[in-house]
């Protein structure tokens, strides 16, 4: 077998069969969420659903530059992205699909690294891969690789992002802006050496602890558009005001430094291992403690409250004591990072 993806790898014949058996399936062991799973290579998979609760389904496509970045790669990003969308719906992830679109000439060892990383990330959240698909596109028709994943999770009652009200507290589960800034630093054109790494991780195990406490009114993962976009979406859907305090937002020193250097706000870049929780105020401390009891949530903090001063808007109280609106970012300042 050659060491690069060729057109025949996507043609459905022997070459594709060999690629599947020898390079892809080897990375996935337990592949069942029901009677029929990935191992059977059937036309579909089955998923066992419990009698009570709600099934939650979500889908996401991932492209990223560079494909391997400090702290992760597109495989971990694709898995965590879908797992985390389920987690912030309050759903325990159970099964994922994996659709690979690969450019002709893509190195097979890179593909295997990506799949191993995808598989490891699924295991961290206790979910399994149940079916998949592979397509090959011609050289120059795609930049390396694109991955689509769909995920199914189970929630006793799914948490929406549209039912917050004045008085609620706002929690973030850790430092903000790490993924976006790490990727910016890793881009060749900036030629920067930075100790930053992406926060990409599946957050379900941490979120599960918070859900046990109860009192969670809304959740969202601040990916594209960062904290600013996620908060604006929540404020706007509930016609509420979210007021946060700049001085309470957990930020790494390296993120702040890079943000000053590049003129890009850490509040507007992606996070891939964080969540925003909007919770009943009298449960806030207990929920915060539950989040902090998990290693991913060590830096969690209460950063503000919901009010009714400016419906649909986010207000930032600045560190020096000023106030300003924190609006929806115009566009992602870091294109193609998630």
């Amino acid at each position: 077998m050659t060491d690069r993806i060729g057109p025949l790898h996507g043609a459905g014949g022997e070459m594709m069969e060999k690629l599947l058996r020898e390079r892809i399936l080897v990375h996935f062991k337990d592949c069942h969420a029901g009677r029929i799973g990935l191992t059977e290579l059937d036309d579909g998979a089955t998923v066992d659903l419990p009698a009570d609760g709600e099934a939650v389904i979500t889908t996401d496509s991932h492209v990223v530059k560079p494909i391997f970045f400090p702290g992760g790669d597109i495989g971990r990003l694709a898995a965590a992205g879908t797992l985390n969308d389920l987690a912030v719906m309050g759903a325990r992830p159970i099964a994922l699909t994996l659709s690979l679109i690969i450019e002709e000439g893509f190195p097979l060892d890179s593909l295997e690294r990506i799949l191993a990383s995808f598989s490891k990330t699924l295991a961290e959240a206790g979910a399994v891969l149940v079916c998949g698909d592979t397509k090959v596109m011609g050289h120059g028709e795609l930049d390396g690789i694109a991955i689509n994943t769909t995920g199914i999770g189970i929630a006793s009652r799914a948490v929406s992002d549209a039912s917050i009200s004045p008085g609620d507290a706002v929690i973030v589960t850790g430092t903000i802006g790490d993924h976006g800034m790490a990727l910016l630093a890793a881009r060749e054109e900036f030629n920067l050496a930075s100790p930053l790494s992406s926060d990409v991780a599946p957050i379900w195990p941490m979120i599960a602890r918070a859900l046990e406490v109860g009192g969670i009114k809304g959740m969202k993962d601040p990916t594209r558009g960062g904290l600013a976009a996620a908060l604006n979406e929540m404020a706007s859907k509930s016609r509420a005001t979210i007021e946060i305090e700049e001085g309470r937002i957990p930020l790494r020193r390296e993120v702040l430094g890079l943000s000053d250097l590049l003129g890009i706000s850490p509040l507007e870049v992606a996070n891939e291992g964080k969540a925003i929780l909007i919770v009943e105020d009298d449960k806030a401390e207990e929920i915060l403690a539950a989040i902090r009891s998990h290693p991913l949530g060590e830096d969690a903090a209460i950063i503000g409250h919901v009010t009714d001063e400016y419906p649909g808007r986010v207000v930032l109280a600045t560190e020096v004591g000023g106030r300003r609106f924190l609006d929806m970012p115009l566009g992602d300042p870091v294109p193609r990072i998630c």
Partner: protein
Amino acid sequence: MTEPFRLTDPDRAKTLTEAISLLAPADPVKIVHVCGTHEVAIAHNGLRRLLPETVTILEGPGCPVCVTPASDIDAAIAIARTGAIVCSFGDMIRVPGGRASLEEARSEGCDIRTILSASDAVRHAKDTDREVVFFAVGFETTAPMTAAIVLDDPPENLSVLASHKLIPPAMGALLDLPDHGIGGYLAPGHVSTIIGLKPYREALDRYRIPVVIGGFEPLDILYALALILRQIADGTPKVENAYPRAVDDGGNPAALRLIDEVFEITDAAWRGIGTIPSSGLVLRERFESIDARKRFDIPEAGPDEGIPGCRCPEVLTARAVPSDCPLFGRRCTPLTPVGPCMVGAEGACSIWFRYGERRTP
């Protein structure tokens, strides 16, 4: 171990805002700054909310691409249409000229290149036999870089379309407007590192107005504002340096020598303001061979025509804030800019839009 001194320290900020409140006059006072970086710092930190109601602060002509006359952009486009490569900074390429922007010219097939520094233009010229033109804009901060490439034996196919401007004469020009209402100037830290204090005295002493040079951190700005208000309270207007950790009173003599060697001072057209005496830089006659205006035979331009409905001229002269304009945030946004102040990253409208700056909260 003691905490490092932070220029965002809330306690020190509180001390300064208390001083500002004590010093603020009972009557409204309008303070004007002339630097996009100041406006970003003010909006980003919500500093307007820390000032007493009687104290307002506005950006004047502080965005270099915003004040570049449409006729210079038209000249750059005319040059590009001859087949030459035109290089300029990112924002400049998006600003509309009389009819089109350089970006639109690029979509027609002109070779327009975005560069990050003057030396990139030299690099482009070395890589080709075609004519390369550096469209040089900016205040006293960028002029020394342009001067340096002119003096450093540039490739023969490189020429410079110079549109550099000087800040202190523009500050004076605003005070000549009948309805200016300006009570004091927060002078730009970056420009001042180059020019020092003297050019402000030469341009502004006769107006008897407080001028305080300020840095760009929240405490720098609050401190400079406090000094301006103290001058007003004491009735002792003068040029004062509140940013001595970066600005020497004499400026940067090496940079000033470079500017003087390459350029002479001339009257210049400012977008939205008009012609201001002795406010621009043109290449000296001995550098005629590298002057794109001569090489491409660019005619003298007439005055700019305004953009219908756009209040950039009033914003650039600190007679309006961006949200006073009926187009602001509606027809005119950073994605669909109508006037230059919404294009330039240092333009007041662009900054107010990006930071959600309004008269409230």
